[in-house]
């Protein structure tokens, strides 16, 4: 019988497709064992005898490359001196795919690391998977007492178990160009929001590209800063929106008026990244800004900085809320429940060390630009020597809040888009915040 070529090809194709269909419909990965043996059981059995003779190698997740994390490298060196039997092997995960990597590890689609690094942005989605192991035993009363109050809540899961330890974080500061202020006759930094407007109007010279006060809203935490300073709060206890309060409207109107009414902000700053704001400041074209504290190191030490001896940091000018509150963006380590039993002790030791006072001080000293949620650490002489404005940073850390709503990525995208519309004059501040609240209240329920 003559076989028609197209039928032959079709038959083969159908067979192959059906094979994949049935294989993909097969039951998924094995369930997680509470003792944490399933994922790496085979490998641990194979190397069981050798592990006891050799060092335990701990696979630790790191966000980005170690080139930018000298403090992490230092901590590893100190830890390995303390525990010669434990070796830390870092896995550098690019930021853009880090959340996906964490979720793939959580689902079993990828061999999981022993210790995971999780920023605020990814925390809600990882917490949903219930993959993180309680580590209450690390958090002694003495250790807890070292940390800022808000950090004590930040490390909890929904059941109140402590599942995280802080790695490093970032905080906002108020920076100003001393030379520009003095040239305009201002010897002191502004003390209130009204002062900011007054100073900024006098300092702004659009023809020379000099701007009085530049703010960007790339990160949702920047808006939280202004909201807190206005006396508001981002969310209620049940995570429904509270940012569209009178205080929230005041905060957003302050930003809108700076741009549209007083014209002390470049109009293009609506879509600027934080990087653009920092560049403007260190190029000496921005008189004042509220920005991330690592800009201090950049302004003081980077080759491109034109303001090395011409800037300072001050307390936040007082807003309607008459508070020093600001935001802290956090970064944590956690242990997944999938960790092999043999490595659990080593992982706990690593987390215990990283969250120790010594490690947090060392982190501040070896990587200015990273910040610790341990207020007392900023009093250490070596920290004061290496970290400019340590006293002010301590105050900011003590008064900070860490805001991590459910579905944080989506919440941030919605709110930033609405804030941009208010800044562009497409909506009033109140309309923008109310529209954002309506959408976000649906999102946080998901």
């Amino acid at each position, binding site marked *: 019988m*003559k*076989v028609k*070529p197209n039928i*032959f*090809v079709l038959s*083969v*194709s159908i067979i*192959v*497709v059906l094979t*994949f*269909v049935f294989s*993909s419909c097969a039951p*998924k*990965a*094995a*369930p*997680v064992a509470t003792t944490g043996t*399933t*994922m790496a059981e085979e490998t641990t059995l194979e190397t069981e005898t050798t592990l006891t003779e050799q060092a335990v190698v701990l696979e630790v997740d790191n966000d980005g490359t170690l080139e930018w994390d000298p403090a992490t490298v230092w901590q590893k060196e100190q830890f390995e001196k303390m525990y010669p039997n434990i070796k830390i092997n870092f896995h550098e995960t690019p930021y*853009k*795919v880090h*959340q*996906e990597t964490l*979720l793939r590890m*959580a*689902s*079993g*689609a990828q061999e999981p690391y022993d210790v995971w690094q999780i920023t605020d*942005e*990814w925390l809600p*989605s990882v917490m*949903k*998977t*219930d*993959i993180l192991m309680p580590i209450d035993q690390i958090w002694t009363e003495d250790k807890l007492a070292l940390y800022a109050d808000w950090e004590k809540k930040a490390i909890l899961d929904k059941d109140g178990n402590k599942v995280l330890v802080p790695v490093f974080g970032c905080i906002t500061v108020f920076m100003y160009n001393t030379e520009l202020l003095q040239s305009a006759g201002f010897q002191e930094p502004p003390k209130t929001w009204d002062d900011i407007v007054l100073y900024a109007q006098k300092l702004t010279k659009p023809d020379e*590209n000099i701007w009085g006060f530049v703010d960007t809203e790339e990160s949702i935490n920047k808006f939280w800063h202004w909201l807190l300073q206005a006396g508001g709060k981002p969310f209620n206890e049940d995570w429904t929106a509270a940012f569209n309060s009178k205080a929230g409207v005041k905060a957003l109107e302050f930003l809108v008026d700076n741009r549209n009414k007083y014209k002390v902000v*470049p*109009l*293009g*700053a*609506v*879509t600027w990244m934080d990087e*653009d704001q920092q*560049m*403007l400041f260190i190029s000496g*074209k921005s008189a004042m800004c509220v920005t991330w504290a690592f800009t201090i190191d950049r302004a003081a030490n980077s080759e491109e900085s034109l303001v090395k001896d011409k800037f300072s940091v001050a307390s936040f000018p007082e807003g309607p809320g008459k508070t020093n509150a600001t935001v802290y963006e956090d970064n944590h380590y956690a242990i997944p*429940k*999938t960790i092999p039993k043999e490595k659990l002790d080593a992982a706990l030791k690593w987390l215990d060390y990283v969250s120790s006072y010594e490690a947090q001080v060392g982190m501040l000293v070896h990587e200015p630009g990273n910040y610790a949620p341990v207020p007392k650490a900023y009093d250490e002489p070596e920290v004061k020597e290496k970290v400019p404005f340590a006293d002010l940073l301590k105050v900011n850390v003590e008064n900070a809040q860490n805001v991590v709503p459910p*579905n944080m*990525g*989506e919440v*941030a*995208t919605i709110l*930033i*888009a*609405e804030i*941009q*519309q208010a800044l*562009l004059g*497409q909506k009033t501040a109140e309309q923008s915040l109310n529209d954002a609240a309506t959408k976000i209240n649906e999102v946080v329920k998901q």
Partner: protein
Amino acid sequence: MLRKEANRNEIFLFASYSIANSSMLKRKNVFFAYVVTLPAIIFLLLVVGYPVFYLFQLAMSEARVEAGSLNLKWVGLENFRILFQDQYFLEALKHTLYIVVTSIPVSVILALVLALCLDKIRRGRGIMQTALLLPWMIAPALGAAMWRWLYNDQFGLIDYVLRLIGVIKQPILWLSDPNVAINSIVICDVWQYTPFCTIILFAGLQNIPTDLYDAAGIDGANALQVFWYVTLRLLKTQILFVLLIRTVFTLRIFDYVYTLTRGGPGRSTEVLATYLYTTAFSFAKFDYSATIAVILLLITSVVALGYVMLFRGVTEG
């Protein structure tokens, strides 16, 4: 000698022809052909078929990542129903279609003009060709980073030059004005891909016999008539090809939008690809992003099919 060799060759050819024509050998040849192409078919099914199947599966499921597993609960077309009520998706679709409808005609017309100019140049054509190709050789992400600086209203070269020569007094908000931002992206897209279109059209122009131009000249046709009835007619295939490729790629535009504006200001430049990316990698909603990907795939397929049918019409005509 030559005659003997010729005889030998004839015999050999005749023998080969006879062998090849025998039906049994024909069947074996066909079977063999399919066997050797089977690895390629399997590879295609693995690399293309299975991911597409999984994409559809994900798009019709509710995906939950739980400790140790990814649970897919079949929901049918529910994700699609939600998607078509999602104002952000509809806006992203609108912006994508806007970019397609503005960017492609501009780049094809510009490419045709450039190809015609290249065709006229004799001296230095090679250098001109290379120079024209430069934008296409730059990786889109790098190109986008460069344009981000060019468009900056404080540091950017474009506003600086325009102000210097007195064309504008205030900087143009290339990336911050919602009415302008999307057109800024169109400019980048045209800049990046016009060279590719130019090269294809230029190659087409080279294949047009010069006799036709001579004949048209003899018949008294003017320049416009020559262009319309000779050049354009004979370039139809290449034009369609360029339109097809450009449409397919522009529907998936991502690099420029993500680097220049991240979909802002106020989501006025959000396109399907950036919405898909944000939904997957910021919101961690892999099922929903798969739904968007399926819609994008279907749109692209329909458009490509339309062009292919037009293509067939042109070549058969």
